[in-house]
């Protein structure tokens, strides 16, 4: 049933008559015979029935609200301030599209310009686009961009072995067509990238990629060294960052990054089972790079009255103009997700962003100390959110026990990194409650004792 969405449904006959047609079928007279078929689908339902049906289905999910969860590994349970959700549901934002007509779309344009500006402050690079699909596709596009800058002379992208396997796979899928080679560098004993091995790998590379914090949640104090190795090899240094750390960690732009990618949706957006998200894409002030940059960019200009206004700019890079020669195929991006992130960041301000980082850092350290009493913490380091824990028993058993006690354990690392053995990565954020940790430690102690 769709009548209530379709104003003209009672006027079909009159309108047909108005344009001298006798039936709706006349409008489809050019559809070849024999290819039309009736859909084998249920009839529409009333709004109440759909409401009940969808609620019933979704209520069977266990959520982070009813089950303490220590999952992270690239998706985190942060609190989203109530006003963020209200503002992005303003239907003038929600139901608009890409601001092709800037005069009537100043709201979304200014909001995206502000998003770009705030991200630029956080990551320490001046040029930020108005979003990619997510961190993974932002990284993939960054790899393609730096390779383009070498015009085919360099096709190697160096990445840490310890990165999210999903992200790694996105990178591989995206760069296959351009013939890029992805080379991984192992971690050393402290869980950070092995710089000696990197020196070899970086030779002839187009780009070297590192993350802050790295996949194991580790804040690597010598990330600059990685950038220097990259630059010594003539490669671009691409840094992936969790922006919630940037109140306490130096802006990657000040640590040698030429390109910064990351996940904007950690601000202002719930987990949503993994999407939608928004990829951060930032570059240094380099006109050559800017011309190769993917995605939409909002710029400031003036209107016919000389007033300050905003508009999509540098569009000659994009697919609707350059077609096969565009810097990327991206059209729809994640504008509303980016605006939600911007509203959250604006609400935090400089002090809030620092406090958020501090609370998470302290919570992570506290968590590590508590669980460190009962489980092995394989890397000695300062962690942010994620902490790998190594178990003396198969992790699957630990996981079952935690689930039975109404908790969700961490992300099992043994599939992607068998050399780590029965290791799982647990994560905390500012939302983690002390009683959850108490409950977890108690349960883990029981498992450890049993061993």
């Amino acid at each position: 049933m769709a009548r209530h969405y379709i104003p003209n449904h009672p006027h079909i006959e009159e309108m047909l008559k108005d344009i001298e047609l006798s039936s709706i079928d006349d409008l489809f007279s050019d559809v070849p015979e024999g290819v039309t078929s009736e859909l084998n689908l249920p009839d529409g339902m009333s709004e109440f029935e759909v409401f009940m049906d969808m609620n019933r289905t979704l209520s069977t999910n266990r959520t982070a609200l009813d089950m303490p969860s220590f999952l992270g590994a690239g998706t985190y349970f942060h609190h989203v301030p109530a006003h963020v959700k209200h503002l992005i549901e303003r239907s003038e934002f929600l139901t608009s599209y890409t601001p092709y007509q800037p005069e009537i779309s100043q709201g979304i344009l200014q909001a995206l310009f502000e998003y770009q500006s705030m991200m630029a402050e956080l990551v320490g690079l001046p040029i930020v686009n108005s979003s990619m699909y997510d961190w993974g596709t932002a990284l993939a596009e960054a790899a393609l961009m730096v390779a383009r800058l070498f015009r085919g002379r360099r096709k190697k992208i160096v990445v840490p072995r310890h990165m999210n396997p999903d992200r790694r796979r996105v990178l591989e899928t995206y760069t296959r067509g351009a013939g890029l080679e992805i080379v991984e560098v192992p971690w050393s004993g402290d869980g950070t990238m092995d710089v000696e091995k990197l020196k070899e790998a970086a030779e002839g590379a187009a780009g070297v990629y590192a993350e802050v914090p790295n996949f194991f949640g580790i804040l690597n104090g010598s990330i600059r060294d990685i950038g220097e190795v990259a630059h010594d090899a003539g490669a671009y240094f691409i840094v992936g960052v969790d922006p919630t750390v940037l109140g306490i960690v130096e802006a990657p732009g000040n640590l040698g990054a030429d390109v910064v990618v990351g996940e904007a949706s950690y601000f202002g957006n719930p987990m949503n089972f993994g999407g939608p998200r928004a990829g951060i894409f930032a570059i240094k002030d380099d006109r050559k790079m800017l011309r190769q940059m993917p995605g939409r960019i909002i710029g400031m200009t003036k209107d016919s009255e000389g007033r300050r206004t905003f508009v999509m700019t540098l569009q000659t890079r994009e697919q609707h103009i350059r077609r096969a020669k565009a810097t990327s195929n991206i059209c729809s991006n994640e504008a509303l997700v980016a605006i939600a992130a911007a509203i959250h960041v604006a609400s935090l301000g400089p002090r809030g962003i620092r406090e958020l980082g501090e609370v998470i850092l302290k919570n992570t350290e506290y968590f590590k100390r508590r669980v460190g009493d009962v489980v092995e913490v394989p890397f000695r380091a300062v962690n942010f959110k994620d902490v790998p824990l190594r178990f003396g028993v198969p992790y699957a058993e630990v996981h079952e026990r935690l689930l039975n006690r109404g908790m969700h354990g961490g992300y099992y690392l043994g599939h992607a990194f068998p050399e780590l053995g029965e290791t799982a990565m647990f994560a905390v954020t500012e939302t983690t409650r002390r009683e959850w940790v108490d409950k977890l430690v108690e349960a883990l102690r029981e498992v450890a004792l049993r061993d």
Partner: protein
Amino acid sequence: MKEEGFRQAFWDEPLIFELSRKGRVGYTLPKPMSDVEVSVPEGIRRRSEPELPELSEPEVVRHYTRLSQMNYGVDSGIYPLGSCTMKYNPKINEEIASHPGVAFVHPYQDERTVQGALKVMWELEQWLKEITGMDRFTLQPAAGANGEFTGVSIIRAYHEDRGETQRDEILVPDSAHGTNPASAAMAGFRVVEIPSNENGTVDIEALKAAVGERTAGLMLTNPNTLGIFEEDILEIAEVVHEAGGLLYYDGANLNALLGRVRPGDMGFDIVHLNLHKTFSTPHGGGGPGSGPVGVKDFLKDYLPVPLVSYSEERGYYLDYDVPKSIGKVKELYGNFAVLVKALTYLKMLGKDGLRMTSDVAVLNANYLTRKLKGTRGYELPYKELRKHETVFSAEPMKRETGVTAMDVAKRLLDFGMHAPTVYFPLIVHEALMIEPTESVSREDLDAYVEALKRISEEAYGNPDTVKSAPRNTAVGRVDDVLAAKKPVLSWRMYVEMKEKGEVDY
């Protein structure tokens, strides 16, 4: 002259940075679990605070509320942006997507704890399969272009798998969306453009001449971007398949055909859909979208991982057993919250509603075409019968008065109506590409035609009225040439340029 009957709100709203006052905060945070000593390693400790704005919550709310009032959405009025399907976004979709079972669910949770989420994905796939006549779907792509990249990557993997590595060409009609050639190029293909014939459809002879042993596939939008149904679709499919290529359906225009004809029955092997177009999920000022990709059975082993499967023992589960998978085109499983909205919409509509949707979308476009046709200055190239959208050319108007399609677009804004897509498709000069959708009323259509007629009169009487438009929007005509010549891309850049006197605004 009658008033246009519209004034957009204008707030002389500063940048949020300019509203900042030292010491104000717009947040509260939980205290740490314990005040343990820990510090960031020396080498990467932040030296100076980021220069972010400092505002209280009410000020943040006011700022963005004002910005929203200087924006125009589907809820504001007619938004007939061609090929974008700016239909009404039902509110029930938003309500369902706000369920805690959506928002607070982690993608790495044990599948036994996310049966509801997986069921939503599985059910949505069943709907999409039946609507398109495909056998298996991935819901992973974040948008149409991401779906196209998925589709052409599958084409590449399929040919490689069969040892036909010489198939390195993707054929694309000259009327195609720019994303088609861009996606094909990204997947490593050479793009071969097929010209349109005098009917605005694929030139079969040109197609026959173009196909060969290098042909990997043809990407086709049907109805095409002129809103014209590719009548020879069965023959096109035969030509491409006989040459050993695959046929790819760009689903941007599926809103024309729901319940009437299925891509799978027309010979297509792969389709991508745009849930934010056809299935009513809001466009969000440019995203998030969602671009699921469906394939015929013989291609299902190439889909991205994971798929969602169901078995008696396991229930719904994430299925990584896809032997020849192209990999992943996005992290995790796609824009899940968008999927929830699309399924909600489909359940509301059902079979009957889907068909009515396309019927009325097509009726509305043809009604508008007929009413506007013959108006001085606008020309309807190619045949009259359209599907869900129509493309006029303002070429005569430009020639005779100097008023361009862009001017017409800007002047429409003055009436509180969103402009059509302009200057696309590229094969029509001064193109005005109008897609009303099924969500507008007859009065909306009549008013749109009236506005276009009045603009025609103005163009021939007092062209400056049109050329100096818009006047009723928040700001006047925006100087995009200046924006590209002198890029100001952030607040900091602006402040620095302003100090140096490089900008005067």
